[in-house]
Every structure is written in structure tokens, then in C-alpha cells.
């Protein structure tokens, strides 16, 4: 989006205020600067020359506290693309001020490099399992660094070895496969939630799919959200090349963020003559795991009873990104014995929003608390969702409120039901 287009998009907001009803950050601040109408107004003042990107810390702050959850976008009568305006704004701010240290360390430092991520994952696992975590938590050392403590709290418990290291045991040849699947095992699934990936791979094979798990680069979603389009494109190119080589029927992801980011590669390269066609081919093959199982495979006849009360949280990137919302519920309801209970505001952001839970801790915690309260109200014992970032955030929320419930991907329950895990 160039500046002229940006200005045009910004001016489509005629300030009706409908976004107030659906914006999580507005709900908890009641501050006009923390809702789409206000944020877009500030962007407009800059586009009209009254202020400059990066020069007003307060504007920068309000641009950064947007969750990019897109609730305003889908509810806006003029369909103002506030999320894209915010990403563009962040890009401009980065351009004016340079990347901040957090971004350099986490995004360009780790997420852009799979080998470093692997080391980080090993360290995190060592920290979690060796007893170091117990010592650190009980020593009180974290209390001096409140922000660090909050971050530590979000880090998942009981980390397993990365998915990639388990692949030799998981992957097998399938006789007369119905589909050839390229599985996009994203950074978070691989490093923190290998159980989800394992369940997905085993289940897909069980249903007659031949699955491969190519080496990937980060999908670039976090970079995009932070306004680092250059790096996002670099990563995207590598992924496109890798997966097109495999000539798969479909490319499937269990992660809402990866899935929606991969689907948007087409848009990312729409002005790049060299990449445009390839990106299009790639994006056409992207499917969310729930959708693939629900719509592309016949109903599973091996499902055994699983007596559980289950509810479902819609990840933003799935409900408003890939527009997948009925399918995961459908899968859960298919499992005999499962009592599905709909949660109030199931499609509201949980406040995880990628690294938002680290960078905007206070706001994130408030939004999370509301989400957990809604979960408690359902009386369910399993909170199903389809995004590792949501899983991390929701699990931390349950721990904080000492709620004895588990967060699981629907595919984990399917795999459990047929006795694969």
C-alpha cells in the first residue's frame, strides 16, 4: 500500500463509531484513542501532514496497542481496513525510528532463523524441566523484573522435544494415499506445542493422507504485524519455493496465524511480477487443518467416545482471517460423548495476538481475564482452539486463575478419540 492509497483508505472512516462495540482494547480502556475510529483518526492527521510518524510517542503507543484482531474491520459498514492501516503505520514508524530492541532480538534475531529457534527451544526446555524454572520462580528474582515475570508466566509448562526431532518416529509411508499433504509445522507448534503437530500428523496419516513436513522459514506473520514487510517477504519467498517443489495437493497448517499469513502471500506479492504467479499457486493450496478434516475427508467412523465438556475459542486469524469457524465446532461435535458448549464472545481476541502478550502485558492480561471468565461460565473442562499463540495465552490464563482445564486443538481430541495418542 503506497501513501496515496493509505490516505484514501483512511478517509473511508466516517466516524460512525460502530467499532466501539467490538474492540477489545476499547472495552477495557474506554479511551477513544484505543478504538479503530480514534486510531484511524490519528493516522489521518499524520497522512494530512499535521504530525509525523514516530514523532509523537503517544500516537506510536496507540498504534501499537491495536491487537490487529480485525473485529472492527468485519463490523465496519465501510469495511475500513484498520488492521492494514495499523501495519502500514508500524512500518512507517519503524522506517522513521528504526526497529526497537525487542523486535531486533525476537523477530529478526530468532524467528527469522530456524537454527537459533532450535537452540532457544532447547534452552526453554532445559529451563522448564531441569528444575531451573522451579528455582527461579521460588527465588523471587523475577519479582524485581515485573515484565520479565509476566513473560515467564506465559511460557508453556511441560515442554516436549521439538516436533522436528520426533518426525522420524511419526512419519510413515501411507498405502494408496488419498491426498499428498505438505504440512507447515510453524515455529510455535514445532518449539512449544509439538503435541499438537504430532496429533495432527498421526491423525492425517490414519485418515489415509501421505504427509511430508518440509523445512520451513517462519511464516512472517509476526514480522508483518510489527510492520517489517521486507523481512516478511524474504521469509515468504523461501517458503513458496520450498513448498512448490513438493507439488502437494494441499498445504496444511494447524496454526491460525501461519495459515492466514500463508494465504496472504498472494496479496503480499501482488505487485511483484516475478513472484506473483508462484505466490498465487502457493496460496491456493493453503488450508486450515480443521477445514481440511471437516470438508475434504469423509466422516471418521473410528471415533470412540470421549466423555468431555468442550468449548471452542475462535482465533482471530481463523475466524476473521481464513473465515473458518463452523468446521472446528463440527469436528468436536462429531466425537461421541463430547458435550459441546458454546462460549460467550467466543470470537473475541484472547489478548495473545502473537507477541502482544509480551509487549502489551497489562492490556493483554485484562482481555485474557475476560476470556477466561467466559470460559468458566461454560462449565467446560476443555478449551479447544486452533492457534498455538492462543493456546499459550489461554493456558497461562487458566493457570493464573487456577482453573483445572486443558487447552487443546480439536485434532488432539480426534487423535485421542481414535486412540492415536
Amino acid at each position, binding site marked *: 500500500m503506497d501513501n496515496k492509497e493509505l490516505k484514501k483508505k483512511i*478517509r473511508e472512516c*466516517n466516524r460512525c*463509531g*460502530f467499532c466501539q462495540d467490538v474492540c477489545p482494547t476499547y472495552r477495557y480502556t*474506554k479511551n477513544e484513542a484505543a478504538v479503530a475510529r480514534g486510531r484511524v483518526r490519528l493516522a489521518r492527521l499524520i497522512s494530512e501532514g499535521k504530525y509525523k510518524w514516530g514523532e*509523537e510517542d503517544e500516537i506510536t503507543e496507540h498504534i501499537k496497542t491495536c491487537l490487529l484482531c480485525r473485529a472492527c474491520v468485519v463490523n*465496519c459498514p465501510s469495511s475500513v481496513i484498520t488492521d492494514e492501516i495499523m501495519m502500514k503505520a508500524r512500518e512507517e514508524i519503524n522506517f522513521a525510528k528504526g526497529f526497537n530492541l525487542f523486535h531486533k532480538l525476537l523477530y529478526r534475531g530468532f524467528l527469522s532463523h530456524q537454527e537459533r529457534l532450535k537452540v532457544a527451544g532447547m534452552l526453554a526446555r532445559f529451563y522448564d524441566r531441569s528444575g531451573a524454572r522451579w528455582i527461579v520462580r521460588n527465588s523471587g528474582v523475577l519479582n524485581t523484573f515485573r515484565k520479565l515475570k509476566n513473560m515467564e508466566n506465559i511460557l508453556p509448562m511441560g515442554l516436549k522435544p521439538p516436533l522436528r526431532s520426533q518426525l522420524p518416529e511419526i512419519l510413515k509411508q501411507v498405502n494408496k494415499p488419498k491426498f499428498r499433504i505438505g504440512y507447515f509445522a510453524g515455529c510455535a507448534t514445532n518449539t512449544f506445542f509439538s503435541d499438537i503437530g504430532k496429533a495432527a500428523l498421526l491423525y492425517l496419516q490414519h485418515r489415509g493422507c501421505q504427509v511430508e513436513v518440509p523445512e520451513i522459514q517462519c511464516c512472517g506473520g509476526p514480522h508483518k504485524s510489527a510492520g517489517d514487510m521486507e523481512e516478511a517477504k524474504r521469509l515468504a519467498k523461501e517458503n513458496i519455493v520450498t513448498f512448490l517443489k513438493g507439488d502437494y495437493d494441499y498445504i496444511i497448517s494447524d496454526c491460525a496465524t501461519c495459515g492466514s499469513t500463508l494465504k496472504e502471500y498472494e496479496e503480499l506479492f501482488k505487485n511483484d511480477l516475478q513472484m506473483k504467479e508462484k505466490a498465487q499457486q502457493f496460496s491456493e493450496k493453503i488450508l486450515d487443518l480443521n477445514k481440511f478434516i471437516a470438508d475434504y475427508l469423509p466422516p471418521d467412523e473410528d471415533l470412540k467416545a470421549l466423555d468431555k465438556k468442550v468449548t471452542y475459542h475462535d482465533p482471530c486469524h481463523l475466524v476473521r482471517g481464513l473465515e473458518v469457524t463452523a468446521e472446528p465446532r463440527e469436528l468436536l461435535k462429531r466425537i461421541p460423548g463430547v458435550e459441546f458448549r458454546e462460549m460467550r464472545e467466543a470470537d473475541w481476541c484472547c489478548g495473545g495476538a502473537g507477541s502482544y502478550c509480551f509487549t502489551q502485558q497489562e492490556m493483554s492480561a485484562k482481555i485474557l481475564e475476560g476470556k477466561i471468565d467466559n470460559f468458566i461460565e461454560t462449565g467446560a473442562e476443555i478449551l479447544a482452539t486452533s492457534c498455538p499463540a492462543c493456546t499459550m495465552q489461554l493456558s497461562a490464563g487458566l493457570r493464573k486463575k487456577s482453573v483445572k482445564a486443558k487447552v487443546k486443538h480439536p485434532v488432539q481430541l480426534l487423535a485421542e478419540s481414535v486412540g492415536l495418542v
Partner: protein
Amino acid sequence: MLDKHLLVKLKSIVGKEDILTSKISREVYAYDSSPFIHEPEAVVFPETTAEVAEILKLSEAYSIPVVPRGAGTCLSGGAVSLYGGISLVLTKMDKILDIDTVNETALVETGVTNLNLQKAVEPLGFMFAPDPASQKAATIGGNVAECAGGIRGVKYGVTKDHVLGLEVVLPGGEIVTTGALASGYGFIPDLTGIFSGSEGTFGIITKILVKLTVMPETMRTMMAVFDSLDKAGEAVSAIIAKGIVPTTLEIMDKSMIRAVDDFLKLGFPRDAEAVLLLEVDGYEVEIDRQVDVIEEIFREKKASSVQSAKDRTEREKLWLARRSGNGALGRIKPAYMVQDITVPRHRLPQMLRFVSDISKKYDITIAQMAHAGDGNLHPHLLYDPDDPEEFERVEEASHEIFETALKMDGTLTGEHGIGLEKLPFMKLQFSEKDISFMKRVKKALDTNLNLNKGKVLEL
């Protein structure tokens, strides 16, 4: 900027979390949903009536103008701070204090949104009848202050018909109650009524006792397509003349239909010149007969198609489409001036036609919709703020529309308020004596003229 001592005092009243004074904060409280933009000097969020009272005491002591504000969805500039001062944002007073199904009332704080009240009473079989299009955001306090209407207005009336009592903080900080909230129930002049539609110029409404309405047993929603606005308007007059009082009768013109269809993808007839959305409600037994009569009228007036909503979801989508009209116009042009002139119902077709002619005469886009059942028109005059020449034409057209509506025995505003927008036209509608009486009432309540200064009346 406000005086330092005053700021310290304000902080001691509401706490430092509930006051904003930075340049950027003032920018985002400078607007509402109208084209007017004026910055306050401080934005204050009281959380209790007592805090509001303390703030109004300070306003008197320091002669600081105060502009009450709810969600900031006013269409006539009522919530912008023309003279700086304090923007008093009441959205943190958002508790529903009581719902009484026996007496069919609800007691709410001023900042409860219309939609949240609807959601709270709906499971109990009730509704709050006023349902302005902005109900997702707009607050009950704001609804009362502007005397908001809504799409159910034809049958159920406007906000003032559903307010039983108020708690109001008067300029100077005195807290009073009126109507059924007050102990002196027997005082006959309608003091509650004075504050309905007072646009925040008489006092700050802090609590409202509203009347709830029992949800009708059944509803039937229909959409008829016409090849001209006139014919749709004639159908409206004919339906009313038959003694049928629909819940809603809404007209949308072609540009409006297209804009909302772009948003909701409902498959609206994009080439239709006019669509009439109609709903009747009541007991099952009476509805069928009404629907028969209405369909007959649609045939007579040559509707090109008539459809009924199949289920609740379809019905809700139709009304969401209607409510999204204002907002969706951003797709066509970045700004609009919307009027809410009201004419006697039999004049509706004539007025709709006149507005269409005006649009051609001044070469501007006017998207029309109307609460046709009340003769309340909403011509949206679209413009680009970067084109001053076009804006001038919009202003001239606007003027002519006001004048014509008044000539047809209509009024300047049905529900959006006078605010800043219609202030220059007050003289057209009211005599000097009438305006002078209004001024005396205003001065009796707000002697030092600190409340929403510069709105409604020129003082």
C-alpha cells in the same frame, strides 16, 4: 490549556487515571459522527454522580465550559467542544442498576449503551423501544439528551416517550431527580421532558429510569422494491391511511442500497431506485390480515418485487443493513452532512422527490434514506473535504432543503438534534418570541451558560 489549579482539583475528584490532557488525547475527543471538529482542553471520565457534581461545581467556579459526551455518535455536532473546556465523557458510568419486570422498568446509568440494555432485557421478554441506528455504540444518556428516535419509531415513538424519570446534575453541582425517580411524584409539569432532547445544555443526565416494552408475540419483515422513491413514499402514505401502524417503515435509495450491499453482501436489488423495508408486529392472529392489506397496497403501487424475511437471521440482517447505512457511505465519499428533517407524512413523496431534484441542481450526491413512517427524512449530502467548492454546494443545497421542509410545515430535526449544524436555521423555524422563551428557559437552568455552550441557541 486549563488552569493548573483547576487541573489539580479535577485530578483530586476523578483520580489521575480518569483525566486526559495531552495533545493527542484532545485530538481524539475533538470529533463526533458529524463534520464538526473542536478540541476540548481536558477530557474527564467521572465514574459517579458525585464526581459529576464536583466537576460542575468547579466549572461554575472557574467559568469553564463543559460538554457532556457519551459514545460520540452525535450527527449534529452536539458532543464537540466548541469552546474548549472540559469534555465530560460519561462512558464509565455504564452499569445497569435494576431491571424490574413487574413494573416494566429499568434503571440505568447514563453510559450504558442502547444495545447492552437491549441485550439485558431481551432474555426477559422485553425491549427498550427506542433503537437508533447507532445503538451498538450510542449511550442511553445520549439517547435521552438528543431524544433519539429509531427504526421502531413509527409505532413506539421516540426516546422521550420511554423515559420515566431522571437523575440530573444541574450546573453548579446540585443533584436532582425528576419524574418517577423523584419523591415528589405528583408534580405535574413534565420536568423529565425538559431534559429529553435538551442536548446537554440544561444539565448532566446521570441516571435514567426507562420504560420497558413487552416484546411482541410475532413480527413479520418485508422488503418491497420500487422503481422510484415517489412510489415507495406513496405506498407508505397508503399503508398509514389504511389504519395500519407498522413497527417500522424505512426507505432507502439506490446509492444507500448499494453501499450497504457492498458491506453485507445480502444480494439487494442493486438497480432498484428505492427499497421499502417494513415490519409489522403484534399477535399472530392480527398480523396475517395486516400483511394481506400491505401486499395489496404494494401491488397497487406497482412494487416490482416483494419479499419476506424467512427467519430471525434474515430479519436481523435486513435491519443491520438499514443501521449500517450511515457508516457504509464512507465507501462512496469520505464525508457527509446528514439531515433529519421531518415533514407531515402525506408530504413525504413530494419531499423525497424534491431532495432528488436538489441533488441534480447542485450536482452533488445525496444518498437518501428515511424513517418514512414518521415522515422523517435522512438525506446524506456526500462530499470530499478536500474539495471546498463541492462543500459550498453541499451547504447551499442543505439550506434549500431546510427551507423547503419548513415550508411544508415540517421541522428541522426529528432526532439528531440542532447541535451546531442546524443552529443557523433556528430562525427559519421559530419566531423571535419562541426563541427568546427558549433562551429564558436555558438561562433559568444554566445561568452562567457553561453547559454545551454554543449549541442549540445563540447566546
